């Protein structure tokens, strides 16, 4: 697509949103509007960029609004909180609510992930993008079935192909993974432990 076409498309989008917005007067408290939108999107969540378009504000302003809401709901007066794991914002209940939800609605199914799934996910999250062979080398077991299962659960996705011979598929984690493990960015992953040979041990043999 050349530049001219891009410009054209852009103005088209603007026109559409303008007609939608004609009668809508911007209320004073956009925070309340955003709060309502967050309620509407529910578990699907919404990105700051999408919100900014909907409320016709800059991305920065939108992020400030989100931060304010987040701050407000952090108070113990509220039973829900606003999270932005993997840059997707959504309301979720605070963890103290759960035991009462179980009484109200009956026993919940425990969320499960096998040890094998966890290890595979950990390797992908720390080393992504990564090929199946690299994962197998690290865990010493075949990863094919596990990768397919994790893909079906939408925790990992394909991310192009490696330049290595055979151009193997590369894998990386998804937004769903970030949400499931309460991560805003991958930088929040805990540091990998370092193992060092302890020099003092040698003294024991003296």
């Amino acid at each position, binding site marked *: 697509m050349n530049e001219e076409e891009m410009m054209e498309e852009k103005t088209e989008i603007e026109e559409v949103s303008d007609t939608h917005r004609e009668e809508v007067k911007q209320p004073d408290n956009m925070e309340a509007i955003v709060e309502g939108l967050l309620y509407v999107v529910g578990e699907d969540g919404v990105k700051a960029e999408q919100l900014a378009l909907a409320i016709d504000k800059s991305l920065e302003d939108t992020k400030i609004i989100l931060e304010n809401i987040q701050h407000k709901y952090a108070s113990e007066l509220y039973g829900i909180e606003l999270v932005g794991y993997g840059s997707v914002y959504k309301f979720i209940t605070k963890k103290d609510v759960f035991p009462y939800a179980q009484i109200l609605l009956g026993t919940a199914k425990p969320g499960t992930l096998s040890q094998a799934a966890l290890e595979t996910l950990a390797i992908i999250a720390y080393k992504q993008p990564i090929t199946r062979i690299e994962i197998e080398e690290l865990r010493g077991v075949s990863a094919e079935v596990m990768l397919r299962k994790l893909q079906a659960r939408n925790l990992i996705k394909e991310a192009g192909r490696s330049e290595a011979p055979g151009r193997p598929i590369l894998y990386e984690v998804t937004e769903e993974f970030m949400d499931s493990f309460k991560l805003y960015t991958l930088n929040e992953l805990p540091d990998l432990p370092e193992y060092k*040979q302890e020099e003092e041990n040698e003294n024991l043999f003296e």
Partner: protein
Amino acid sequence: MGFEVETLKFEGPLDLMLHLIHEQQLDIFDLDMEVLTDQYIAYLHAMEDLQLEVESEYLVELTTLIEYKSKKLLPKRGDELEDDYEDPKDRLVRRLLEYQKYKEVSAALYDSFVERQDQLSKPLSLDRFVKEGDLDSQKVEGDPYDLLKAMNKVLRRLQLSRPLDIKITQKELSPEERILQIKARMKDLPETFSFETLIEDCDDLHEYVITFMAILDMAKDHYLAFTIDDNENIWFTRGTNHE
């Protein structure tokens, strides 16, 4: 899937070796390969005695251990004295340490996972926001996994919109019959229609599943084409093979 026996809860040969090293109190930085190899073999024998199949992965690593043992008995070859030659023992230790890192960190990840599982959210409020008209402009083919994901979502939504009641009924509806029913109903359906429309005449999960199987068959035969939008709604149009 599959079952695990108490004695077999290892995630693979490296996990087993780490367990043996721990159990025998071996120093991983000064690994006694002889003890490790003997214990490893003893473990594989024990598995066989229990008539459990030893997975090939365990045998692959066994060859590494045995290779090391046999090499020690032979005089060193020239290439093994060069700088960039990595001793198989060093290589194994490096792999064990690397594996242990991810094993350890996965425990920390699991804690956040469990915590997040207990924090609930409500589904998208969708009822008044159906954009059927837009569909023609965004035809995307999904793969079966997309369809599966979308189907999960549909089932979850339906579960939420229905009261809790349990009844036992026996109905025999085959996917083949269902395909005929759907084909008949499609005569009156618009160009584009949603999965929800197709299951309007279903009362239970069994019928949803049969409908889902029917449309999988119909999609395979290119009688139907499906599209999954950003909200993971499934939409259908008539396929290339639609007479």
